[in-house]
């Protein structure tokens, strides 16, 4: 697994509705190559929907998404072997395949593409698991793991494909504060070691401040403001103020 520069991500005027419900109302966002951006917002404001548009699991009703300088549609239409870069996603509930072992889950893409010898894939898998501090868990089943461990296996699965862009959907949801801090440290370490672009969707202000270069606030289906962690306490935007007030109360 090489160190990456990452790829830039550009969203302009992205709209997405479900029936009569509009979730994204023209979201604009630019993420620099190698940047770690946190998207902060209340539950139900379309943060996960935004992430699903970027990875191509859903298509926007209108608007444009460009990843690594290539329109997303064109990138998605490319055969896996011909894609110039890779995008990985860490799902909120880890989304590990229950019938496969940890090692099979982590090495799944490599086994399916079958370009490498099984020994090489096993080595990649082992390294990815070491990076998330789960060495030795190769033969366990997902049902044997705690919530935090499943999240880390999910991150290892993302790392195993050597991605240029990693998307995290609520990586600390349902985790206790200690596990949340561990996952935060892991993401920050990966940024330092690997250099891939990372986008984290979260409603956890502490996580966003601890790991991100910039924080984008999603409100009413649009990116309402983008600030650095240092600028965050001075924000005048009402939703950001609400987050800061709630965080201060929690603190």
């Amino acid at each position, binding site marked *: 697994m090489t160190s990456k520069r990452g790829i830039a991500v550009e969203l302009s005027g992205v709209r997405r509705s479900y029936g009569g419900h509009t979730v994204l109302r023209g979201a604009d966002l630019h993420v620099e190559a190698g940047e770690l951006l946190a998207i902060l917002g209340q539950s*139900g404001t379309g943060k*996960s929907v935004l992430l699903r548009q970027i990875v191509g699991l859903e298509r926007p009703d209108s608007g444009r998404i460009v990843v690594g300088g290539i329109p997303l549609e064109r990138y998605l239409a490319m055969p896996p072997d011909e894609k110039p870069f890779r995008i990985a996603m860490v799902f909120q509930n880890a989304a590990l*395949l229950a019938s496969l072992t940890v090692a099979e889950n982590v090495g799944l893409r490599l086994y399916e593409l079958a370009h490498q010898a099984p020994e090489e894939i096993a080595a990649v898998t082992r390294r990815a698991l070491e990076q998330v501090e789960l060495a030795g868990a190769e033969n366990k089943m997902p049902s044997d793991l705690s919530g935090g461990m499943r999240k880390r296996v999910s991150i290892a699965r993302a790392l195993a494909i050597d991605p240029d862009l990693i998307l995290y959907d609520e990586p600390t949801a349902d985790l206790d504060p200690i596990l949340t801090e561990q996952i935060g440290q892991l993401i920050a370490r990966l940024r330092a070691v690997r250099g891939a672009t990372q986008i984290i969707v979260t409603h956890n202000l502490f996580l966003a401040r601890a790991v991100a270069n910039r924080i984008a606030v999603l409100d009413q289906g649009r990116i309402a403001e983008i600030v650095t962690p240092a600028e965050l306490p001075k924000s005048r935007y009402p939703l950001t103020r609400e987050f800061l007030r709630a965080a201060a109360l929690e603190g």
Partner: protein
Amino acid sequence: MEADVIDRPPAAPGFFGRIGAGLLDVLQVLGEAALVFAKALRSSGLRPRDRARLAAQLVRVGTDTLWIGALLSLFVGMVLVVQAADQLQQVSQDVLGPIVGLSMTKELGPVLMAFLLAGRAGSAMAAELGSMQVYDEINALRTLDIDPIRFLVTPRFLAATLALPVLILYADFIGVWGGALVVAIDPAITISVHAYFNRMLEWVKFSDLVIGLVKGLVFGMIASIVPCTFGLRTRGGTEGIATSTTAAVVWSFILILIFDFVIVRIGFTFS
């Protein structure tokens, strides 16, 4: 996945609106099933890893249906003889063998085993894929550039399509012997087991077996593609999984009966 931002509640549809929506839903299911079928067929070229998954599915289909299939066929054969013997008491019980043989090979064996496959293995397929859909496992496959149809549907489709004709032969065999058992022990039946089999072999032709096997191939496709389609279109958590599983079994049964009629009709047209 987050909840949506609500602009306005959609207006409740009227009577005709509900009928129209229902029809559209039926057409959408059929269209999706046709698409899944075409994709599964296209990705049927098996690589070594696909072969391992196919073998695993064949074992699952077999273990799901073998014992209950044997029990079902045995009793169906036995009941057929008892019912027919009673009706034929005043005429001749000579045709008991042909009745059981033709019923089992041409109709009961294929339909019963297809229902069993759809009810047991098919419902498991719908529930498993539905759960994977709800918990983002299928989306995870997509983000890893793995085609969910090749990875999940094709092995199940091939396993059911290959297994059902074999299961039908197995059901035919056990059903016929179930009938023979009743012929041997029931004092109300006046023919011998020897006569039962002799008359059966006079009447049941190889083409009758072939018709049953052709039905098996078609029903096997239905009993796997329909549940997989419903699994993949599952929405809405645990309740959605339950709804998909039930719908998959009901739709499979209906389509099996419709295609049964079509195959029989075409068979008579060309015979």
